[in-house]
């Protein structure tokens, strides 16, 4: 099947974009497309440790990132430039993710059949 990259660009809780991009990613992976996921811009916040207070009012959909293993989504990348802009110098991500330079990102995107940007 096709190599497809999903680029996430929105912060986790300001909109439904992160959640709906995740649903789309899992659906694409379920029909055997080869998925890479890139967290760029404010989307890098989606990968940081979550608020664990029980009163937290929004769905913590990031817990479902743990399904990536099950769906064979191994290529998860974080934009280095976006981390630096936000002074996230030694971030701890909730799932294993590779930090990627702008040049590496260019190569990755050039090798894709489809790119979805949400």
């Amino acid at each position: 099947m096709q190599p497809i990259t999903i680029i996430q660009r929105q912060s986790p809780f300001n909109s439904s974009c992160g959640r709906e991009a995740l649903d789309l990613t899992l659906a694409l992976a379920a029909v055997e497309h080869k998925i890479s996921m890139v967290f760029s811009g404010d989307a890098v916040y989606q990968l940081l440790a979550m608020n664990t207070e029980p009163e937290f009012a929004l769905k913590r959909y990031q817990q479902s990132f743990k399904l990536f293993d099950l769906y064979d989504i191994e290529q998860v990348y974080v934009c280095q430039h976006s981390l630096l802009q936000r002074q996230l110098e030694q971030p701890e991500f909730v799932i294993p993710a590779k930090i990627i330079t702008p040049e590496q990102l260019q190569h990755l995107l050039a090798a894709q059949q489809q790119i979805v940007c949400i």
Partner: protein
Amino acid sequence: MTTFSLMLTTSPLARQDFASALQFASAAVDAGCQIEQVFLYQDAVLATAAAIDLPADEPNLSDQLANFCRQHHIPLLYCVTAAEKRGVMPADSGFIGAGLAEFAMRLTHTKLVQF
């Protein structure tokens, strides 16, 4: 000739994406290309709402897209889950309820253009 999949993710009222997609689709069909699917996701599912009532001087892009797809026999799909989450009751005017899986399967062997 190229076969395209089109995906829309924004509200038809709030942005120009439906107008752009219509222009693109029209040009693609004129050039002899195929369109495998038009898929409405996220806020674009608002286009399927039965109760849309626009002033006479505002173009109804949802209707225009539905008419275009009907005329050219292009499957016009919307994500059922995204519509249910938004409480949208789809009109019976050419929009076909589908899952993300159907979009993913139809995507194979097409080129995706996102609006």
